[in-house]
């Protein structure tokens, strides 16, 4: 290998390493994903499939936010969601609404 090519390879290894590092780092699930994945236990994979429990996928962000805020304040009646949502901050409600609204419809 010529010295010039070797130096280029080293430079590219460094760049690729950085890229791979970022790629691997990006694979670690973020807060939105981990918290949204908790919803799937009852609501089903990607928020669908558990029949009698309302589906989440394909809903508008504003509808999800409105429902969750309503459950939390008690303005919207619920059997169990009101008990759950009291744990969530406004930011978390917004984050979850954005996540489910962003899933492929």
């Amino acid at each position: 290998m010529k010295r010039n090519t070797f130096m280029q390879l080293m430079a590219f290894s460094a760049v690729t390493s950085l890229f791979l590092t970022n790629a691997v780092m990006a694979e670690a699930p973020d807060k939105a994903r981990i918290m949204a994945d908790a919803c799937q236990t009852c609501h089903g994979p990607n928020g669908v499939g558990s029949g009698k429990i309302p589906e989440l996928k394909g809903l508008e962000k504003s509808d999800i936010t409105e429902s969750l805020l309503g459950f939390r304040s008690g303005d919207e009646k619920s059997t169990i969601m009101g008990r759950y949502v009291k744990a969530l901050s406004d930011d978390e409600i917004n984050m979850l609404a954005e996540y489910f609204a962003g899933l492929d419809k």
Partner: protein
Amino acid sequence: MNQINRRKFIKLLGAAGVASTTSGLILPGGAIAGSKARVVVVGGGFGGATCACYLRRYDSSLDVTLIEPNNQFITCPFSNTVLAGIKSLDFITHNYDGLHKNYGVKIIHDTVISIDATAKNLKLKNGKTLKYDKLVVSPGISFNWDEIEGASEENSKIMPHAWKAGTQTTLLRKQLEAMKDGGKVIIAAPRKPFRAPPAPYERASLIAYYLKKTKPSSKILFVDSSGDSEELAMFRKGWEKLYKGMIEWVDGSEQGEIISADAKTLSLTGRTVGNLKGDIVNLIPPQRAGDIARVAGLTDKSGWCPVSQQNFASRLQKDIHVIGDACIADPMQKTGHSANTQGKICAAAIVTELSGGTMPDVTYNVSIYSLLNPKYALSSAGVYRLKNGKLKQVAGGLSAKKASRKTRLKEARFASGWYKGITMDTFGKT
């Protein structure tokens, strides 16, 4: 790039790729990335199956192997509906195809007989040794037979516990079918901590549902070593309405605990509750973490496994995580939903650690549905967060004390939905 042509560029990328996969990349904090970390999960119940599934969902480059002796998993949730003849055993039986086909989890049907935490490997019953970088142990429960004189695995064929679903569930169901009208069923539930604390209440309810339909003069004597509680009061109110006079609840806490059992006479004895004789004895013994946890040195003197509640890493052995009923995660109760939640958090924590990141602040969610009949359910919800390294309940609670028949029916429908959702989620069904 102007000094290098396209072909050379691709060649260089290829070379860099090889270099990075053979040597791995060392990230800050000593984390390994770019190399294929090997994670082995022991136990294919709600904890282990969920964890294996989510490890692959969060990082598809991981080499994930699930070790489980059985080809199928029969769930404890909804097994009380099988006892009552509402659902079949097939309904609560699930396979591991989804985990393998949809998520690339490798499945080995075998039993782990020992774990070497120093050499980071484990031995299987078939003689093979398996190496791991990270190990997740989700062994469920074992029974403390020796705490009740006369109780044993052998005698459970006469006095079934039906607290691990499968042949024991079928056995208790057959006994209920064979019992004459006017017979007495004793349900003896152990002191906490044990698997699925509200489930004895559901069991008493659904056995009463079956008896009321088919053998209405029969009775249930429920000896409860957990003692009284706000939750029990809600069930007792329901029993009064649905099964008046059929279920007699006896406080078996503290001195009342069952201390001996006689399979020949179908009787149980407690210090204060005296000698109790039934036509059927459903003896649910006191419990501890599944045996492999003790063999591997993961249990403390309580019989359960101390862990970090942030990532479920064992406090006793390095690079081993313990989830599900076996770990000490209180105030989370030992239930299928808790195990499912812990499986996900543990998977996220392992992937985060391997990539050198930090786990975000997230909630840990648990719901428990109990049926009093197919159209009447109560639920308990718990939301937890880490505060100074310890889980604290931040929201949740029981169903409304006063509610319409319609609300109880809605919760019964949600119970079915919950079961469908959690089994799809846990076993990687799409």
